[in-house]
């Protein structure tokens, strides 16, 4: 310490230079696969996994006692829902069979009707209020690679932005600056869905670059489209909550299908769509 104290100025200067060197070596897309990153990340991740499981244990116990009454009502509601869905399923099967026949008829090649997916637990979240990044317990050992799409049970969640041997970092669709090529399911009008810190705090997304002649309406489903080079098309992102117009043209506020505040596990699409 005395030695450092004597050369304090130089030491601080060295740290500053070191910071800039690291920034320069991170690479343009932000996430390089640096040795230090995966080495430190792999170890730190084990700690996070431990803390996460302890936290889950307590919240499970807590939920068990607090949600009894709620669960009873929900159960009643779900039973009714099952009846309704069963009826719908019959109809759906019928139209699916019809669809298959017609698809064969027009020789339509359904390229992405199913994807290879891998389940993963969400372990930790970015501890700042700026980024909507989280880590999952699958890495290169399980075949996960950067830019793979990440789905939640309800819809599109984000993409893999960094990966270590036993963990991966997911950039959520809510993250500011993260953009996904999308389209309205009903009309096929295209746009770019992106995260925005200001909307993210209310749990919302924004869809930009919508053609002024577009026929989108509140309540329309928004799905990923084939323009994207990395995401599979046809995955539900959310529903339009509000349409508006500003200097940039038409925009829409989108309620994401995925509840990011409660996301215990995700699915990684291990097919690459380049």
């Amino acid at each position, binding site marked *: 310490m005395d030695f450092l104290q004597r050369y304090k100025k130089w030491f*601080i200067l060295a740290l500053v230079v070191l910071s800039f060197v690291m920034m320069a070596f991170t690479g343009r897309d*932000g996430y390089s696969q640096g040795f230090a990153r995966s080495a430190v990340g792999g170890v730190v991740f084990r700690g996070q996994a431990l803390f996460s499981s302890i936290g889950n244990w307590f919240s499970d116990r807590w939920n068990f006692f607090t949600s009894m009454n709620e669960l009873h009502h929900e159960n009643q509601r779900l039973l009714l829902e099952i009846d309704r869905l069963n009826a719908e399923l019959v109809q759906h099967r019928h139209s699916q069979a019809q669809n298959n026949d017609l698809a064969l008829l027009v020789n339509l090649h359904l390229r992405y009707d199913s994807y290879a997916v891998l389940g993963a637990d969400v372990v930790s979240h970015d*501890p700042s209020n700026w980024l909507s990044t989280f880590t999952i317990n699958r890495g290169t050992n399980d075949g996960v690679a950067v830019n793979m799409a990440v789905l939640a049970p309800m819809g599109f969640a984000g993409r893999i932005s960094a990966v270590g041997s036993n963990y991966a970092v997911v950039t959520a669709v809510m993250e500011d600056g993260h953009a996904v090529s999308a389209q309205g399911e009903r009309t096929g009008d295209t746009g770019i869905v992106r995260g925005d810190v200001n909307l993210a705090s209310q749990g919302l997304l924004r869809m930009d670059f919508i053609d002024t002649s577009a026929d989108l309406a509140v309540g329309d489903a928004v799905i990923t489209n084939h323009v994207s080079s990395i995401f599979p098309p046809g995955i539900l992102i959310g529903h339009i909550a509000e349409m508006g117009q500003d200097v940039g043209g038409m925009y829409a506020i989108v309620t994401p299908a995925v509840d990011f505040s409660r996301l215990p596990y995700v699915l990684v699409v291990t097919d690459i769509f380049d």
Partner: protein
Amino acid sequence: MRILVFTAIVILNFLISSTWLHSVAIWGIIPNTTLIIVVCYALLRGDLEGAIIGFCAGLLYDLMFGRIVGVSALLLMMTGFVAGKPFADFFKENYIAPVLLIAAASLSYEIAFYVINFLLQGRTDFFRYMGIVILPTTAYNLVLGIFIYRAIYGINNLITRREERRKGFLK
């Protein structure tokens, strides 16, 4: 001894803040406990040690979550360095100086984070970011900072007394 204890505190804080802290979010805002710890430590131990702890804590965050490795390391190092500087002679038992310092550090840290990660990428909507992220985080840090300062102060005192006792024993 001191290095060991505070390394453990920094790592423990990182693990807790990335896993449990999200369940105490108020309106989606969580406090920046890392920043509070760095400022408190710098306040008690001076600029050099403040810079070192800031650099290490920032690097840990960068390696796990950061968009660009080195940004948080640099920012937290500067925060620790400045926080440890002119305040060394303040009454450390007094709460007003540390709390004000934590608030000032949070404000400047969050603004710098915004400038580097958002403004430079064309997000010029400063006042909305200010109202939705920067000010609430600062307020939360300020309140939580009182308790964390108390804890760090206690731990630091304990270690100092132990070291002094050992020195006296050797004499």
